[in-house]
């Protein structure tokens, strides 16, 4: 099982405390949750919009709710989870600020990952071709993309800082989307990493507050 988990999900999994309560927003077929339940004994649940993915996840035995993650997250009481994961979905969210605040309302820690739009290949494509970039991480044309946000690693750091939240861990990786292997980028990550993965927490002094 370990080897079949995508590289970025392996990093996320390494941050999860065994036995903790985990919610995965946009969990797909629940590969990550299934792994976490088996190997880290977490109490995991997921939210997914696509019917066939929901069915595949439930077949694996993972508790999944079909629905829109922006709406589904509202019903959970404060501190229902230890970790809420938003893996490669932020770029599709209409109101990211509200969503991230909700994440840190229902859990102490959030994990957010997204394709880094300032990777050198993307920059170069736009510079040289003049067309909207199409890459393996963002393989869509402008007219058929589900991705409505353009985010870079620098942007996200700034966003977290301005929102008064805490950046607890950060890893930039260079990997292809479906790849099981990849490498961590420490030198010039905003230019060289295809994905950024972040562990975020509530701002100082807000831990006991109901909302951040």
């Amino acid at each position: 099982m370990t080897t079949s988990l995508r590289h970025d999900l392996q990093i996320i999994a390494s941050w999860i405390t065994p036995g903790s309560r985990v919610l995965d927003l946009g969990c797909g077929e629940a590969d990550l949750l299934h792994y976490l339940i088996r190997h880290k004994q977490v109490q995991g649940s997921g939210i997914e919009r696509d019917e066939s993915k929901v069915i595949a996840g439930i077949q694996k035995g993972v508790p999944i709710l079909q629905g829109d993650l922006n709406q589904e997250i509202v019903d959970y009481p404060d501190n229902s989870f230890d970790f809420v994961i938003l893996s490669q979905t932020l770029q599709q969210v209409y109101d990211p600020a509200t969503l991230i605040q909700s994440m840190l309302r229902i859990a102490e820690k959030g994990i957010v990952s997204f394709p880094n739009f300032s990777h050198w290949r993307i920059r170069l494509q736009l510079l040289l071709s003049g067309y909207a970039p199409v890459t393996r991480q963002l393989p869509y044309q402008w007219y058929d993309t589900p991705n409505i946000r353009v985010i870079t690693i620098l942007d996200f750091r700034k966003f977290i800082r301005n929102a008064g939240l805490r950046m607890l861990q950060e890893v930039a990786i260079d990997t292809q989307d479906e790849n099981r292997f990849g490498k961590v980028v420490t030198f010039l990550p905003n230019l060289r990493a295809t994905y950024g993965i972040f562990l975020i927490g509530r701002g100082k002094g807000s831990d006991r507050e109901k909302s951040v």
Partner: protein
Amino acid sequence: MSEYTQSDPTQRTVGIVEKRFFTFAHPPNEMVLESGARLGPITLAYETYGSLNADADNAVLICHALSGDSHVAGYYPGQSIPGWWESMVGPGKGIDTDRYFVICSNIIGSCMGSTGPSSIDPQTGAPYGLSFPVVTIGDMVCAQAALIDHLGIERLHAVVGGSIGGMQALEWSIRYPERVASAVLLATTMRHSALAIAFNEVARQAIMIDPNWNEGRYYSGQKPGLGLAVARMIGHITYLSDRSMRLKFGRRLQDKNDFSFQFDTDFQVESYLHHQGRKFVDRFDANSFLYITKAADYYDLEKLHGDGSSVKAFSKSRAAYLLVSFSSDWLYPTYQSKDMVKAMKKNGLNIRFCEIEADWGHDAFLIPNDRLSCMIRGFLERIPNHPEQEDDDISSP
């Protein structure tokens, strides 16, 4: 709702089955009903498939809907039509009889072998008719619990039901939290909407204005067949959907090329409803229809268990849940399942929910569907291994 009953093309079946009977609540120990009335003796018709394991922890109780019966799967000797959920229940199927001991009993108030208004009242020697007490979903579940005790089962691996059967499964999980490891709730609701009550009331009125109904005393004469047939026709409209009727019938005419310019059957949809109505009269009792629809209309989980709050009602549950709604079901629409999910979430319950895209309206849960079978199968397999569930096992009395 048995029009979808068909032999499984894979030939996998539990084979020949037998309807059994269990009688309890003999006077003076009658069952006290939710209304305060007493009923006894009570007979339940039931069937079982598969075998109970040594720990008696592999039992799955199936709860049937309005017009269903205990005959879920397999064949009665000499009959070619299997039980009403043959596609779901059998060896290697969604509810796998190689793994689970499957039980289904006919609900009280019905007419398929269990005690109901058409049964003989031992005090008078005549059928109960309207002197049969009004029973509730809770009463049906209480009676099922007596059967489960009789079968020597402490805790059910799962209770599964669709529609009114789903209400029973839901009620089981709240009424007997320590006895239910999981519940599968298909196309169901925690309370009827005004729309659902309205359709039921029109159906009941159709029965009661049939002169043959005679205040429920018709067992020695003509049955209120016309009224019951109209009631069933109304029911069938609510079980389908605009789209399914468009696909199934459209405006096609029945056995003719042009309108009759009379009030005969012109459209196929009319012919279908007439056929369903007639068929139903042969197998179902009009008074039972009144009692069961009333029980469904009365059911209100919030009122019964939560002082008006569904969140409070679900705080009693310890079960893992699988909820499935169907996109074209306008009798128990998806929002009603989502309302349950919302209340379950607030209680931190272990839940799964999926809305299946299906054209066939409320009836979709009865139609063979691989997606549904796979989900139920996967869900049932994982329940005992779930760590949260094991914790519950330890903490439950």
